[in-house]
């Protein structure tokens, strides 16, 4: 079943075309990477899929409903590109950051109280951040903050999570642990993951679906076929390295 389907999406910024006639389908259980060079429209496409930007043409359906009719936003998790670029002095504890996505007013009594307590703790446990629940978010490392934002995306028990360049500025070892965690969420908990990245090394190790974008969709399909595709050869020709392996 298609969780999300985009058909013929076109978008321009101030008359400059960013996306041209882009179509994409995301099925339940996919671990999809949207890849492409800088400025290829990856983030714009995600923002259109999430209703943050309005396309000049095209149609979006989420879980079988047109985007403008879709209301069950708890089923969608999102970690934006600049999630960790918040004011480091913002006085929010880890459990407040995770709990805010529940939109529950009972949190005025404290984010770890009432019905939300178990939900917040569960989400933090899923990403290995439960011991840090009372820490101020600004005191964590970049990698730890990204885990907290994943927990916030998980707290509503979504069916799909969008992550936009989630490991920018994070060291290689932390990146590796981070993507292993995404693998677990995808394989063990069945959460569909949509990852925006320009690092095709990550694509090779973790994803099963690839959408290759450069204003237009040059490839959309399985990872194995991608490794044999012209789009793959074009990317490798640009200096990126990708080693084919079977999932």
């Amino acid at each position, binding site marked *: 079943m298609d969780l999300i389907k985009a058909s013929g999406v076109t978008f321009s910024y101030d008359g400059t075309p960013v996306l041209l006639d882009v179509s994409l389908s995301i099925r339940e259980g996919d671990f999809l990477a949207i890849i492409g060079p800088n400025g290829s429209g990856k983030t714009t496409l995600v923002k259109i899929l*999430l*209703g*943050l930007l309005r396309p000049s043409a095209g149609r979006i359906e989420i879980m079988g409903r047109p985007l403008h009719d879709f*209301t069950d*936003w*708890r089923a*969608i998790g*999102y*970690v*934006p590109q600049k*999630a960790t670029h*918040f*004011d480091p*002095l*913002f*006085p*929010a*504890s880890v459990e*407040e*950051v995770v*709990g*805010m*996505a*529940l*939109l*529950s*007013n009972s*949190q*005025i009594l*404290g*984010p770890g109280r009432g019905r939300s307590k178990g939900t917040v703790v569960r989400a933090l446990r899923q990403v290995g951040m439960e011991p840090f629940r*009372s*820490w*101020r978010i600004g*005191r964590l490392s970049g990698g730890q903050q990204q885990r907290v934002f994943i927990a*916030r995306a998980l707290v*509503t028990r979504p069916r799909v999570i969008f992550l936009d360049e989630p490991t920018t500025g994070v060291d290689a070892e932390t990146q590796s642990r981070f993507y292993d965690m995404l693998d677990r969420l995808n394989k063990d908990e069945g959460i569909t993951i949509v990852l925006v990245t320009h690092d095709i090394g990550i694509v090779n190790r973790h994803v099963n679906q690839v959408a290759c974008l450069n204003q237009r969709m040059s490839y959309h399909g399985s990872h194995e076929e991608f490794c044999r595709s012209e789009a793959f050869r074009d990317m490798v020709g640009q200096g990126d390295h990708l080693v084919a392996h079977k999932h």
Partner: protein
Amino acid sequence: MAVLFQYGFLQRAVLAGVFIAVACAVLGVFLILRKDAMIGHGLSHVAFAGVALGLFLNVLPLAAALAVSVAGALAIMRLKDRAGLYGDTAVGIFSSLGLAVGILLATLAGSFNVDLMAYLFGDVLAIDPLEVWLSVGLAAVVLLAVALNYARLLFMTFDRESARVSGVGIGRLDALLMVLTAVTIVLGMKVAGILLVAALIVIPAAAGLQLASSFRMAVVLAAAVAAFSVIAGLALAVRLDVPASASVVIICFLVFAVFSLAKGKSILPGR
């Protein structure tokens, strides 16, 4: 401080002052973190135009100030959204316009008199019982509205984009926050006066933010600082026979200074 509870006019001043100052402080935490701290300053000038309009038309100045401030708050929000202005430019424009219109109307009404001075400098010790219940009631409505939208306001303040994806109505919530701020500013005029009311929005919230390790703690500390400053400031005003608005704001600042020093010395645990 016991003197505050011996006289009816002082009891009224404490009751109204504490409610209004707490409402100002709670909103102030959200506004500072949204980098909208100057909105209080701007809306107080817009409220001045409202007071002058009330005096000019011979209607209740508080009611006129309320209507003009709410309209001004929504206009500032709209101008920021539509005109693509930088930072606090929209606040600066409306702040100056409010003051200019206020001076013009007050001059035309020939009302640069005691009435206007009471609004400019605050006169909480002269608050009458009707104004007390009006202030307490409206401040309670403001606090209730914040409580009912607490999680949404927090999410929007921390991360607008993710809040939108989670279904938070950003536009409606922005408007709600602006309207609540306008109402609170008008109420605060009686305590601190048009010239100092912005201090009730900014200083207690800034003090709370000095020591808070969570958002909830920031709100609680800001509210506590505001309530303490009103009580201590009124006691000081009665004791020294000085203007209550000035002493409340100076106490606010002293608490802020102590909290800032405490933060520097890390006297509170803050992992």
